């Protein structure tokens, strides 16, 4: 399989280290070769594009240029925010004038049109849920009920992201189903979690994230599963704030989808990084085992596996 230029993004080295390590491990296990982009730099994140589109695109585009020597088929990143900046830069640079302005700012101009994709897109399109399911005939996550949450920018705006349904994405759902998990019909898949308002107005983030947690809980989910470092942080780290904002008690583990894939693929604990999560993930696995035991009582063929 071909090589992918890998852009971890800054949170991958900090708050979402477990997302980065589990992503790398899952890709390796599934035969995808990741090559780190030499001397990669900040994508511009939230602040840059609010100030200047050319400068912001230059920040993102520098990484595209740095990746050109890797002979990769695509540049991939786990972080939706990095993905947006990188894809938006590519999108805007289709305009020749804009491209020239950006290239003028760069020591090394962008020459190739390297496709930019999320790790999620590559896992779904280049590996595929069917292949994943065939590797895991024992359905390791059977009994686990998950609420998949994609966040607001993974698939939007659709003309830039060009992946999955912008309002009803299913990529992560399909991967989780391939692992044997159940997926609840979570209606708020692309709602706002509050994003970076957690810094200036944590009341807003608490309310918005609380609504997501509440809906997932009411649907009977054992855990939520995300693909975004910021969403994960808001839902996991701020669960107590959300609870006091809504006057409800939550104990909802919030996983990265790559962590669950790594669990299912039985990869080493140190790369999965379940110990990095704030809300104990064991609540979810306990619920999963209980559900399996119940299913086993109804269907004896199931009970062997529980044992």
């Amino acid at each position, binding site marked *: 399989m071909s090589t992918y230029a890998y852009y971890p993004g800054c949170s991958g080295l900090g708050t979402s280290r477990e997302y980065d390590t589990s992503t790398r491990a899952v890709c390796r296990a599934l035969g995808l070769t990741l090559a780190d982009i030499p001397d990669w730099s900040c994508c511009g994140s939230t602040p840059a594009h609010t100030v200047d589109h050319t400068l912001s695109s230059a920040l993102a585009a520098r990484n595209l240029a740095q990746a050109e020597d890797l002979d990769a088929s695509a540049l991939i990143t786990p972080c939706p925010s990095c993905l947006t900046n990188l894809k938006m830069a590519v999108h805007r640079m289709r305009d020749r004038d804009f491209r020239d302005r950006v290239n003028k700012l760069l020591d090394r101009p962008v020459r190739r049109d390297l496709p930019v994709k999320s790790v999620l897109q590559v896992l779904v399109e280049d590996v595929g849920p069917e292949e994943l399911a065939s590797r895991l005939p024992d359905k390791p996550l059977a009994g686990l009920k998950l609420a998949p949450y994609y966040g607001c920018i993974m698939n939007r705006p659709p003309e830039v992201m060009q992946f999955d349904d912008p309002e009803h994405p299913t990529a992560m759902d399909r991967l989780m189903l391939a692992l044997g998990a159940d997926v609840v*019909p979570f209606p708020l898949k692309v709602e706002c979690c509050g994003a970076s308002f957690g810094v200036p107005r944590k009341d807003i983030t608490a309310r918005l994230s609380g609504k997501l947690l509440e809906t997932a809980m009411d649907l009977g989910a054992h855990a939520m599963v995300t693909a975004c470092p910021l969403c994960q942080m808001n839902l996991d780290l701020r669960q107590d704030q959300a609870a006091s904002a809504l006057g409800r008690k939550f104990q909802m583990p919030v996983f990265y989808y790559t962590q669950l894939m790594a669990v299912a693929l039985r990869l080493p604990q140190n790369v999965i990084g379940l110990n990095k999560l704030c809300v104990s993930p064991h609540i979810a696995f306990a619920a999963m085992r209980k559900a399996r035991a119940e299913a086993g009582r109804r269907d004896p063929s199931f009970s062997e596996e529980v044992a």
Partner: protein
Amino acid sequence: MKIGVFICHCGSNIAGTVDTAQVARTALEFPDVAFATDTMYACSEPGQEAIVQAIKDHGLDGVVVSSCTPLMHEPTFRRTVERAGLNRFMFEMANIREHVSWIGKDTEANTRKAAELTRMAVEKLRRNMPLFAKQFEVNKRVLVVGGGVAGIQAALDCADGGREVVLVERESTIGGKMAKLDKTFPTVDCSSCVLGPKMVDVAQHPKITVHALSEIEDVKGFVGNFEIAIRRKAAYVDWAKCTGCGLCMEKCPSRKSLDRFNEGVGTTTAINIPFPQAIPKKAVIDPAFCLKLTKDKCGVCAKICPTQAIDFKQQEALFTEQVGAVIAATGYDLFDISKYGEYGAGKLPDVITGLQYERLLSASGPTGGHVQRPSDGREPKTVVFVQCVGSRDKSVDRPYCSGFCCMYTAKQVILTRDHIPDSTSYVFYMDIRAPGKMYDEFTRRAMEEYGARYVRGRVAMIYPKGDKYVVRGADTLMGTQVEVEADLVVLAAGAEASQGAGKLAEKLRISYDKYGFFLESHPKLRPVETNTAGVYLAGSCQGPKDIPASVAQGSAAAAKVLALFSKDKLENDPMIAAVDIRRCVGCGKCIQVCPFKAIKEVDFRGEPKAEVIETVCQGCGLCTATCPQGAIQLAHFTDNQILAEVNALCLA
């Protein structure tokens, strides 16, 4: 040859940017032009009289009028020259309005181009020949395609006018969408009570033959002499024997069959009569659900049918009807609401279409007229109506307004309050479009007397919460976001072209727009005619329409047919192809390209030659462009005439 040239001002339409007097002076220098003048309105009565007078005074053999598009006034001026004693084909028209004055502002350039177009017309006219139409018999039977209210009205009016009518309906009963409605706006009178008697009239009229469960397979021929191939689908019931007693429905064990008449709300039996007032009232077996046809079990209906009408081996049948005119009245289909994924439409059981809600309101519907949620049968207390679902939305490629949804939503709001007095209705709308007679008063009544809460804004998403549904939208008048917890959500699904409309249009050789609606001949002045002679339109197949407009069009189309049939003989168009037998090499290429099958191979002294069937040829010219020998020429558009026009332009 003496030619007269008339340059029309069309008021200021042409004269505003074309020096018409100068064009007339230039025209006088063209060969054979004996007279040229400009005229204020060539099509007006004095304008036409001036042409007649000029023909007489100057002994003209032909006339060129440079004015508007020939689509509008070529027939007018042909009649004018005919009045003055010339053959109607000794006339040419140059379009200096649409092709010149309306598209350019430079008077000098416009004047030059107008003169060049006029020169082309003169050069063509110099080579024109008098042509004479042939007469042919008219078959005075009419085919009506579609048995909705528009088709029913058209059929009844034609039959009352004394003409035999063949009514073809795709479903097993006529009635169309109107038969599914509970009440109609703005009078709130019972839909089946007004439609039912008309359906009975159709059944009992001695001049109307109804072919239900049938579709048009093929159309041959031309105005006055169509041959229609009709495919009748298998009903698995011999309708000659079926009395419509309904005993089979009582005994059929396959009770989970899709109820198409009830729009999938509730289920029906595999053998069924769609509704009590069905015309014809005959049973049909749905082969997808019948146990005998799917698993070769059961067969209860065949055992209990008192007239032995059940025939599991029945095949579809193909037969033909000869008619002289066709009225297309194929109606519309509802927009597929599942395209709005964010509304959960098609997935959430209590998010339904307006037509499904009609069935819930109807006393003859699956709930006996009690409004119940499809999911749990509970009576809804909060009902949210969402308008413009599949209308006025470019994102789903439906930019047009479906026209009647504002009104049916207002009606459903009123009926909801009547059925459930302690209920609250919300309506999310973009604008209220109620331009009919008593329509705006009606929508106001829904708001003011029935307390419906109208919220101006689009709905962003609908999702389940417990056993309710959260409807989130914008209130653009308040500038806020709104969330309503609803028990039932009714989507006012818009109208789209009936399934298969495009294919039927191609069989009838009529045009349709990019959405599949049939194109009328002129949007204002020929609303029920098509560009194919003898084919007319009625109802929503031409564009979304409410009941009064559909009925009016049904009658209008019938009037057109009766006018056509008032003549015993019709004249053909003499602008058809003819074969020069000396140049024809019998290659047969023309036979292959002719879309009307109007050319046949004949034997001429042992050699194959092409021959044009004059009554079938439509004068499209494909054969003349294909013929390698130039042996087929289209009268009035011969190679010589077209080349003369090209030369006139190039030499100018």
